[in-house]
């Protein structure tokens, strides 16, 4: 239990720091920004209660918002993404997952983890960019930005998951 909390806390701090100090400054071809901090929500253990997931999603979104001067935008899209996380796992993986395991290649399978990540990130990015474009609407550019950012984020998360030795070794 303590281990879980500590692990979650470290994930939170490290991912937020990486996001606000490094990744927020990356704008590949001026359209794509990877949002790696979503990895925190993705890796919460299966069976975490719905309200906890929603709350922590909101929290990490709010912290990222504070650093990138976009109050409420990340918080909104993260809360939505956190809310659909559990139904999504049920839909993709069925009900026979043991409680308390961490989503990873080993527990979900390569295809399963990829689909899970992809759907989750598409939901988050579409909401985020739609909210952002409330001030300035430009459909073509918006679509390009969403697609490009989804691709970079998914690539980054899948790569990092492949190198995440801890989750491969224990698988739980």
């Amino acid at each position: 239990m303590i281990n879980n909390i500590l692990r979650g806390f470290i994930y939170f701090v490290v991912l937020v720091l990486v996001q606000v100090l490094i990744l927020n400054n990356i704008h590949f071809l001026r359209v794509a920004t990877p949002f790696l901090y979503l990895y925190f929500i993705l890796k919460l253990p299966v069976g975490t209660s719905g309200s906890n997931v929603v709350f922590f999603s909101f929290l990490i979104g709010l912290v990222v918002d504070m650093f990138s001067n976009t109050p409420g935008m990340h918080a909104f899209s993260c809360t939505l993404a956190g809310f659909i996380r559990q139904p999504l796992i049920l839909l993709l993986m069925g009900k026979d997952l043991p409680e308390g395991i961490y989503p990873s290649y080993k527990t979900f399978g390569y295809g399963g983890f990829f689909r899970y990540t992809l759907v989750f990130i598409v939901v988050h990015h579409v909401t985020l960019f739609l909210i952002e474009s409330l001030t300035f609407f430009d459909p073509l550019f918006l679509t390009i930005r969403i697609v490009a950012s989804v691709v970079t984020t998914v690539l980054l998360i899948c790569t990092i998951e492949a190198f995440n030795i801890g989750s491969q070794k224990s698988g739980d």
Partner: protein
Amino acid sequence: MSIVNCQLFMRKLLDFLVRKRHWFLFVLLEVLSLVLVYRNNAYQRNIMFSSANVITGYLSSVSGFVTSYLNLREINRELLERNGQLEMELLELQEQLEVMRADTVLFAGFAPDSTEQFPYSFVMADVVNNSVTHLSNYITVNKGRKDGVEPDMGVVSERGVVGIVSTVSDHFSVVIPLLNPKFKLSCKVAGSSYFGTLSWNGRNARFANLDELPRHVEFEKGDTVVTSGYSAIFPAGIIVGKVVDFKKQHDDNFYSLEVELATNFQALNNVRIIKNYRQAEQINTEREAKKND
């Protein structure tokens, strides 16, 4: 019987509420987020949730301190260039002064008003947080209320206009740069006196559009665009950029100009915040005038 039914119903209802409590939390947090989005879109004044608060500001200034070393060569080159320009200007002015003095040296009645002075002064600040690719971009700088910075002050770099101060905390302030649809700047083509509105097109950090410029204004590609001075924020004649392209607007009476911005927002390190100590006076006078409408 009906009491038992009622109890059963209440229990079911309670059960339902407890089981679905993450739904309520979800709705609550979403509403909270929307309030934040809406309030800050309406007017960016919330210090608590912006990068001008103590923790985020401190972290940004540490990272800004580290990254500032990476651009020293470029900054040095720019400063040398600027220095050269200013030296040239100084020489020119000195020469003019000499000529004028030679003209007026015998005229003892020339007594300039010593209370008349340039109503602007500068505060130098370092950029600690910056974005160029969002739709609404913001810049955080490391000077705040303690250094005399107030909301609605203009901000310039060594090359040209940057933006306007929006939120101020004790040691940090957030600037709305040209790269933000909320910011519209009154500009004119240098040499003419007709003005238009400069706003960002949301895509490229190097370009912005100058709209509503009357058709009969004469200009060419490559002409400089400067501030018009029709606000209490920027003095007239600060460089904004240069004209790279123009086309007629759809209503045909105005030009829309594409302007290459003079300030390189992607490599912004030092800025100057302009203090205009007559700003309050001007705004109050204007407000007074509008009240009578």
